[in-house]
């Protein structure tokens, strides 16, 4: 195929031309790589967090029922459990106990929760890895808590939780039911909220509807809705970051426009020589396009690889605070490496399309130089 040979030869020349002006091109590739790196980091991070969150939520109950009092979340009476259990399609109803505990010494907000595993272990707690780090405790240590009547109660740490996902469970403290009730002075027979398991996933909406009619003072929260909210919030945050970075992309486009426009005398002469010895305008444009493709692909790959290492091996040290939010307990969490082609496609669009658009006219302008220009120098 003559066409392929031709493109190969032109590509060959484009590569040698890039290498010859390595200083200028290195600067371009570096800036380009940084742009790709930043955007790729944001995308990889949000995507993995979303994925992680949805993995966790997959194991959670389909419906959570909260009692609402004057529009505020209130304690739910235990007798609601029996009422709910009678709704057809409901497999299991459980009362849940959880709340927040503010620790002034570290300035952190812990999530206190009663789990099935820890319900009976009075006087002990199991803590999330983040809690262990922030208050510097190990298994066997005692931690004091200030109860609602002002007195201090100490619990022995019997375990540090090592969950699959640090993101959600990092600030968790598991306590027994009795300790929980005495610590917060929560009356017997009441729960923070109730969880429901439903036999058939497709009936979730129907069941929720029945709950609303049966117990008008409650609010059923569906797992799918939580997932959706998660998705929306993380997409929104990464979108917001990307909007912030569109400024950077714009600046980069202007930078590459400028690089492509401001050809040195030597480069202009080179184009002139090519035209003079028998290259045609479209062939010089092809050469310039190859240059652009090489620069784009190199920077894209470099940026993506660096971002991958940053997010999945380097714990996204650079952007985590922005995306994860306000918690003081920055979990040292490692995301599970996961990249899907879709993210790469979006990233490619965000970076390569503006670059190409910015260089198309300068390349053409370089290519239309008169072939006889070298004779008139």
């Amino acid at each position, binding site marked *: 195929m*003559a066409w392929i040979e031709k493109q190969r030869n032109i590509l060959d020349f484009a590569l040698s031309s890039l290498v*010859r002006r390595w200083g200028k091109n290195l600067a371009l590739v570096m800036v380009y790589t940084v742009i790709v790196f930043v955007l790729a980091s944001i995308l990889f991070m949000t995507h993995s967090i979303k994925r992680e969150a949805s993995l966790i939520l997959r194991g959670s109950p389909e419906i959570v029922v909260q009692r609402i009092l004057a529009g505020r979340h209130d304690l739910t009476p235990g007798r609601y459990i029996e009422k709910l259990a009678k709704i057809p399609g409901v497999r299991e109803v459980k009362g849940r106990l959880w709340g927040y505990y503010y620790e002034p010494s570290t300035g952190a907000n812990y999530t206190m929760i009663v789990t099935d595993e820890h319900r009976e272990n009075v006087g002990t707690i199991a803590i999330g890895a983040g809690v262990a780090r922030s208050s510097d405790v190990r298994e066997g240590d005692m931690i004091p808590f200030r109860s609602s009547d002002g007195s201090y109660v100490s619990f022995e740490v019997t375990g540090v939780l090592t969950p699959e996902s640090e993101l959600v469970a990092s600030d968790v403290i598991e306590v027994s039911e009795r300790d929980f009730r005495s610590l917060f002075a929560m009356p017997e027979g009441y729960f923070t909220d109730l969880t429901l398991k439903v036999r058939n996933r497709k009936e979730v909406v129907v069941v929720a509807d029945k709950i609303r009619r049966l117990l008008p003072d409650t609010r059923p929260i569906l797992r799918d809705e939580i997932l959706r909210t998660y998705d929306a919030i993380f997409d929104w945050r990464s979108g917001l970051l990307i909007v912030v970075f569109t400024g950077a992309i714009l600046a980069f486009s202007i930078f590459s426009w400028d690089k492509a426009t401001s050809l040195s005398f030597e480069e202009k002469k080179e184009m002139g020589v090519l035209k003079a010895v*028998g*290259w*045609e305008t*479209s062939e010089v444009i092809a050469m310039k396009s190859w240059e652009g493709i090489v620069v784009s692909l190199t920077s894209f790959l470099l940026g993506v690889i660096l971002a991958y290492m940053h997010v999945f091996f380097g714990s996204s040290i650079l952007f985590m605070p922005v995306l994860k939010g306000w918690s003081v307990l920055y979990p040292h969490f490692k995301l599970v490496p996961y990249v899907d082609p879709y993210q790469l496609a979006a990233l490619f669009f965000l970076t390569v399309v503006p670059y190409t658009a910015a260089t198309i006219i300068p390349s053409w302008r370089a290519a239309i130089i008169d072939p006889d220009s*070298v004779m008139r120098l």
Partner: protein
Amino acid sequence: MIELQRVTKVFNKGNSNEFVAVDDISLTIDPADISVLKGPSGAGKTTVLSVIGAMTKPTEGRVFIDGREITSLPERFLTGIRRKTFGFIFQQFNLIKGITALENVMIPSYPSGEKHSSLKKRAMDLLQILSLSGKAMSKIEWLSGGEAQRVAIARALINNPEIIIADEPTAHLDTKLSEEFIGIMAALNKEGKGVVIASHDPLIYGAKVVDTVVEIRDGRIVDKEERL
């Protein structure tokens, strides 16, 4: 046969710096000859040369190559014809710095779609004929003036053109190299290639091997001398 019919070339037409480089020239070039365009610098030799070599479109007038009118052809066809018909040697050789002599010779043939290996072989053969095979992998900036000149000639020959066009080829060469140049041109002419040179160097237009000398002044032909 290359025929220029009443060719005029105006630069910056309509502007205050309008400049008539070539004024109503008609000329025929025999591709079997060595022809020289002679005249002082600024006389319009280079412009006539680039019109002959299909590099510049005339503002008025028509150009025929082997009876085919080329003035109204789109660039992509013009380039194709130029590639096949002409090989160019420039005043300062205009070799591309930073790449090897071999690559410089190959460049004009890149767009032809020839296989890289066979193209490379042809280029090496040319360099050998011009006794440069030892310098094939040297970068241009390491070559002497005479070597650079021969690389430029090899580059002009890579597409196997009918006619070699040279613009003031000896301007930067000493007498010995200038004589070597005209010697190579004579040898190529014997092999059947036409040669058109623009020069104000007496060593060139006075050389015995030259068949035709056309004198140009202020964009017009003032004298044409056919030597037999």
